[in-house]
């Protein structure tokens, strides 16, 4: 097997059976993907398309009806390989009677991380998750966003080579979403592989190197973002400080060259950018007040 491949599936199929053992739902149908080490790979698709089923198969939570899957060169049944994997489930499923420190400590102990090292990692991750103010509060008192943050922290407690994230930004506010994206990008910079599944397309587009689109359990499309989205006969030029007369001249020039101008408009940012700008301004104001 190629050492550069983090995840590979071969005709991976999962059919859920009815009570009487008959095939009921074909959740995943002959999936073939290969994810390179060090890349951020996005798994896209509508609800019920087979994204979560794929992740569960890769993590050995469920067994495939047919086909095979390899994670970091090993079979998904290999328990030892899980020490190199970090996983964030779709729902934040943790013991709600534990606080943030205890939750991370519990998972850290399952990874057999020595005490001192575990403590350091817990402190770093709690800080990274922005949960220092609530670290001693039981998780049952956490909001959905806070649970998501502690979920991401527990997925990283073992400093994994492969991080599998199921809807990582679900329930997070724009700041949390941005921070999560930054964490994912930082992981990539450190050479980690990230597989994330989401139906928030903008998030995936922002950070993923490659994506695969699933629908009704079947792989519809796979490739880099540029490959999938670039249109060869449409050109986009972004210009700063161009006077109005010059715009008219450019438009005339394009028409002379038999090109078709689709739209000319002032560039607008995204709502996310605007939100983050306001938030940053508020923070700096409150610091000045102090």
């Amino acid at each position, binding site marked *: 097997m190629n050492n550069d491949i983090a995840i590979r599936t071969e005709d991976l199929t999962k059919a*859920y059976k009815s009570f009487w053992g008959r095939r009921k739902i074909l959740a995943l149908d002959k999936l073939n993907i290969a994810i390179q080490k060090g890349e951020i790979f996005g798994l896209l698709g509508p609800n019920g398309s087979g994204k979560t089923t794929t992740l*569960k198969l890769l*993590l*050995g*939570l*469920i*067994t495939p009806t047919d086909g095979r899957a390899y994670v970091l060169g090993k079979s998904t049944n290999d*328990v*030892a*390989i*899980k*020490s190199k*994997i970090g*996983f964030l*489930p779709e*729902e934040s*499923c*943790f*013991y709600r*009677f*534990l606080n943030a420190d205890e939750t991370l400590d*519990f*998972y850290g*102990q*399952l*990874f*057999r991380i020595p005490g001192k090292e575990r403590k350091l990692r817990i402190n770093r991750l709690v800080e990274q998750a922005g949960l220092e103010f609530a670290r001693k509060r*039981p998780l049952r008192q956490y909001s959905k966003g806070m649970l998501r943050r502690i979920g991401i922290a*527990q997925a990283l407690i*073992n400093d994994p080579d492969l991080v599998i994230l199921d809807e990582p930004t679900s329930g997070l506010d724009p700041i949390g979403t941005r921070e999560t994206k930054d964490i994912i990008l930082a992981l990539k910079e450190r050479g980690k592989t990230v597989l994330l599944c989401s139906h928030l397309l903008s998030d995936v587009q922002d950070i993923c190197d490659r994506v695969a689109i699933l629908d009704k359990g079947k792989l519809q499309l796979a490739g880099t973002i540029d490959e999938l989205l670039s249109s060869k006969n449409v050109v986009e030029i972004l210009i700063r400080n161009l006077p109005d007369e010059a715009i008219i001249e450019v438009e005339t020039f394009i028409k002379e060259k038999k090109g078709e101008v689709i739209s000319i408009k002032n560039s607008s940012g995204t709502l996310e950018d605007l939100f983050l700008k306001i938030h940053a301004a508020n923070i700096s104001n409150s610091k000045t007040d102090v």
Partner: protein
Amino acid sequence: MQQILVIARQTFKEAVRNKILFVFIILGLTTICCSVFMPVVGDGREKIKIVESMCFRSITFFGTLAAILLSASSIPTDIENGVLSTVTTKPVQRTTIILGKIIGFIYIIGVLLIVMGGVSYALIKFTALKQSHQGNSELMVRDQFDPDTLQITGEPTRKIGNVSWIEGGGKGSSVWKFKGLYSKDRNDDLEIKADFLVESKKRYDWGIPVNIKIINHVTGKVLTESIEISRNKPGLLRLNGESLEGSGELTIVVSPENSGDYIGISSDSLRVFFGKKSFGYNFLKGLTIISFQFFLMVIIAVLGSTFLSLPVNILFCLFVFFCGNITDFMRDLSTVINVFETHEHEHGLSALMKKSNVFVILLDYVIRKPILLLSYILPDLRNFSVGKYFTDGINIPCKTVFMSFGYAVLYTFFCLPVSFVVFKRREMA
């Protein structure tokens, strides 16, 4: 091992933080303490008996309930909440999860047992102290001796199953030999308990008179006593320990006094109680045996939780607990159904049963055989029943402790691998 202990601590922490452990402790202690206020008819010993009985029943009931509810619900709830699907994505074997959970439940039940046992012991001691101040009773237990041999002289009038019927008036007698009756204290009382079936051609108000002759072969002393034994109340004879002087052996000859009176005896109808033993040690043995039952229920509940949903698993465990206490009855019931086919005097249903028809076959395959099979598959929880020892003030033989331990271990060896295999195959969907 480290991971097992991590999961065990987590399981224990869950029971503490969710306050379920405290609820069981408070309920158990309330019942135990209520035993002091139970009205008693009889002497001080009766009062102690009531307290002992209530304490052990409370410990058994609340301990078993805790064992069933906690261990039957933990794994299904964790699966339902998705916690286990997160845990199983870590480098943890599923067998580790099962073992960790079991050890966690043992922690919980252990704490419950220590607290309830400690309070019970203090309460029994306190009650006994109070009674002894009034000169009523002391807190001791005695060894129970079963007969070494039983011989019947003369012809038994009839024999049904293992019960032989002997007629009085010199027509027959039963000769029981007891061995190993030694005590450090020569003044120990010796108690003979005759639990016979009785019948008579005459009408008695209380019971039939029975002659009991106690022979000490070493000293040659012969003691003859007469007691009355009725249908519902066993005969009791208390003797001074001196009748055993120089010998650990006794021969007891029992026969009804009058012709026309009958006693029905089996090999364990006559028992001797002798020697004084520490109550505390006996109490500890009792708690140990009960803890084996809790352990067994935990193992069964964990087995059920590997493939059953929460409500079904609780029902399954309660069913096992209920049937485990009536395995004898289940076997008897199965025999009763079978007797229909073989009994000599057929009337009504039994006559119908004699003929091989659909009803007979259905009854045999749908009721009798499954009941019989269940009675052998399900654990016989009477092996862990200690109530009778404390009610009668009998020293629990060490053999019984080891037997119950062996039984629990045997059952565990069967259930645990099945749990491992089933849970390994279970999908965390």
